[in-house]
């Protein structure tokens, strides 16, 4: 109830079409020369003091990538990307690697303060109960600038650091797991990422440990013409539990910028990983100019029996979103979940969904997708549910709901279902609705303004998914959705 009121207050207090994270941090940065070749990859690898095998891995990916072509099957349209017109590495000069907070450039601290991200450990997220703390890894362009609560997490045995640091400090763990869920050759963007990834988070939760706090990574693109190639790897050992959240913003710029991430999750026997995303990259302006191209490969491997991986995403930003957080249900009795709210407004294009690959016995999955389209946007749900021959008793429930606001937007649902096992039971439900004039009039008759009415109806529509978010972020997500739909009525 409070959240609804808060949403309304927020909607009231802001101007139409304000992307409030659109500011630029004026900070000197060090960049690799523009363009992509083997030297650039060597440069990145050297910058990060990586082990030799990592460089080889990257180069192999790069050579492979050169033979690949961009996928065109998604329902998104954009001019051809010139991959040689991008900077692949940019780092604030003063912050070559993670260090203690005292050494971090004050300008960067101010940036995160402005974004509402608490980096000082005594601070807490605005509006959150004093007791709940969140460890943050802050990635600025190509580098992680700081990771908080590391010491405390270490006591519990949890490793939480940037992937660059993990490559130096825990190379054996990285080597064992990187590319084991999303192979180097997986797809065009994943292969590109494997060649040029710059930073991201690494989480390792040892056997039987329940991670004592929420972990989160906050990605910020600041530099012009720079791509961000994030690589995140999360491993939950037997019986471990971790909840992780990522957030993303970028300045308002006229040109399009590329964000091509790879996220790999590995859950061993009885482990559980909950991964939440609040994606708010710059979506482009009112005319559809600028904005982030968000081409992301996220996949979780329920490798152990009784393991569970749950993806929750709130996607409101980016000019183009191409993203399918998936679960490979390898372990017997494993479970995959995908909860998604995808909001598109203006000229945004979203092609997003999930894949649930049932391999083990008695595996189950659940997909709840809520798409909201407004303005001139196009919003596609694309999902695959498949059962392997040996996946006896596989179960899936899918629910895809689309809500249209206005006349010029589109909602599309493209489900693929493949079952090679006769005992599998897959259910699919889909609805498309509009915020009807009657609903609007009814709410207005009770005293709600246009925007209050839309906020209320949309909140009702996304409720099932919002409930899946960690509480600290549910209110934030609700606000974000309302803001994204600003100016969509009338």
């Amino acid at each position, binding site marked *: 109830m409070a959240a609804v009121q808060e949403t309304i207050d927020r909607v009231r207090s802001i101007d139409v079409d304000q992307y409030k994270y659109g500011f630029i941090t004026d900070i000197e940065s060090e960049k690799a020369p523009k363009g992509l070749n083997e030297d650039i990859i060597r440069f990145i690898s050297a910058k990060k003091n990586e082990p030799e095998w990592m460089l080889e891995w990257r180069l192999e990916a790069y050579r492979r990538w050169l033979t690949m072509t961009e996928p065109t099957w998604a329902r998104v349209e954009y001019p051809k990307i010139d991959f040689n017109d991008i900077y692949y590495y940019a780092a604030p000069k003063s912050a070559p690697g993670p260090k203690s907070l005292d050494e971090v450039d004050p300008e960067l601290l101010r940036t995160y303060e402005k974004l509402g991200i608490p980096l000082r450990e005594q601070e807490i997220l605005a509006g959150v109960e004093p007791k709940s703390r969140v460890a943050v890894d802050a990635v600025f362009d190509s580098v992680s600038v700081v990771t908080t609560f590391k010491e405390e997490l270490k006591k519990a045995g949890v490793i939480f650091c940037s992937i660059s640091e993990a490559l130096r400090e825990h190379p054996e763990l990285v080597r064992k797991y990187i590319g084991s869920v999303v192979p180097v050759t997986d797809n065009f963007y994943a292969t590109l990422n494997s060649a040029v990834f710059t930073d991201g988070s690494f989480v390792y939760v040892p056997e039987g440990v329940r991670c004592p706090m929420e972990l989160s990574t906050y990605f910020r693109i600041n530099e012009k013409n720079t791509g961000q190639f994030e690589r995140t790897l999360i491993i939950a050992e037997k019986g471990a539990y971790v909840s992780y959240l990522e957030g993303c913003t970028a300045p308002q710029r006229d040109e399009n910028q590329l964000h091509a991430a790879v996220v790999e999750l590995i859950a061993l026997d009885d482990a559980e990983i909950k991964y939440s995303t609040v994606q708010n990259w710059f979506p482009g302006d009112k005319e559809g100019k600028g904005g982030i191209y968000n081409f992301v490969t996220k996949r979780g491997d329920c490798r152990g029996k009784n393991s569970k991986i749950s993806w929750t995403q709130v996607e409101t930003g980016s000019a183009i979103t191409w993203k399918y957080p998936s679960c490979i249900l390898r372990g017997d009795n494993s479970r995959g979940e995908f909860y998604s709210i995808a909001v598109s407004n203006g000229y945004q294009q979203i092609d997003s969904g999930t894949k649930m690959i049932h391999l083990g016995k008695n595996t189950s999955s659940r997909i709840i997708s809520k798409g909201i389209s407004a303005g001139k946007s196009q919003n596609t749900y694309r999902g695959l549910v498949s059962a392997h021959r040996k996946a006896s008793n596989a179960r899936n429930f899918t629910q895809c709901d689309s809500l249209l606001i206005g006349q010029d937007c589109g909602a599309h649902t493209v489900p693929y279902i493949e079952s090679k096992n006769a005992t599998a039971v897959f259910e699919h439900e889909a609805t498309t609705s509009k915020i009807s004039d009657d609903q609007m009039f009814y709410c207005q*008759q*009770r005293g709600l303004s246009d925007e209050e009415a839309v906020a209320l109806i949309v909140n009702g529509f996304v409720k099932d998914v919002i409930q899946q978010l960690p509480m600290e972020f549910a209110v934030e997500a609700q606000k974000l959705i309302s803001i994204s739909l600003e100016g969509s009525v009338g």
Partner: protein
Amino acid sequence: MLEIKNLHARIAEDGTEILRGIDLVVKPGEVHAIMGPNGSGKSTLSYILAGKDDYEVTEGDIVYNGQSLLDLAPDERAAAGVFLAFQYPIEIPGVATMTFLKTALNAQRKARGEDELSTPEFMKRVKEKSAELQITMDMLKRPLNVGFSGGEKKRAEILQMALLQPSLCVLDETDSGLDIDALKVVSDGVNRLRGPDRSFVVITHYQRLLDHIVPDVVHVLSKGRIVKTGGPELALELEQKGYADFVDAAA
């Protein structure tokens, strides 16, 4: 006080004329019933009072407490005290009835420059009014009107009316879809709200609602005009003779 002056209105989309010169004055504390056959313009009148933009007023005015309602948006009319109990209440999926009540009440209070109600005070009021209408807490947790029975929907409308405390209540065929018991609960709810400062416009097909909510004045609407006005006895006469005589008179 509500004054409807020579009101002409048509459907915005195709220009079909529905109201052809309605004159009506409803004083504070009065209950006016508007009866008439299907297609006479009863529901249209209620929508126009509330400001639905499917209709276009081509002539005349609606003045409420000295202010023309035609210049006000639906939410502004609501804040000014106009309440419409819908014939077919609209479903709002995912929004708990309780949430809706609080959002609406606070939106109106805000629009009037009043403070929001504290949660305990709000709960107190909801509990009291709900009990009178035999509405359970369980029902208030369900999404508004979604899966509600006909009776539940109408009781929820009256609950909103009781909470929002409007000064002009327009009831559009509130009796439709109600069995005798539900009709009694709903009518009692309406009667409890009757008072010297509150006016009612009760739109109905049937006399039976007026047995419970006894009007001060009864109007017969036909082809977009009021063709006869009388006391409560007029409703009884209609019940016996049907609308045919009046419809012919208007032709």
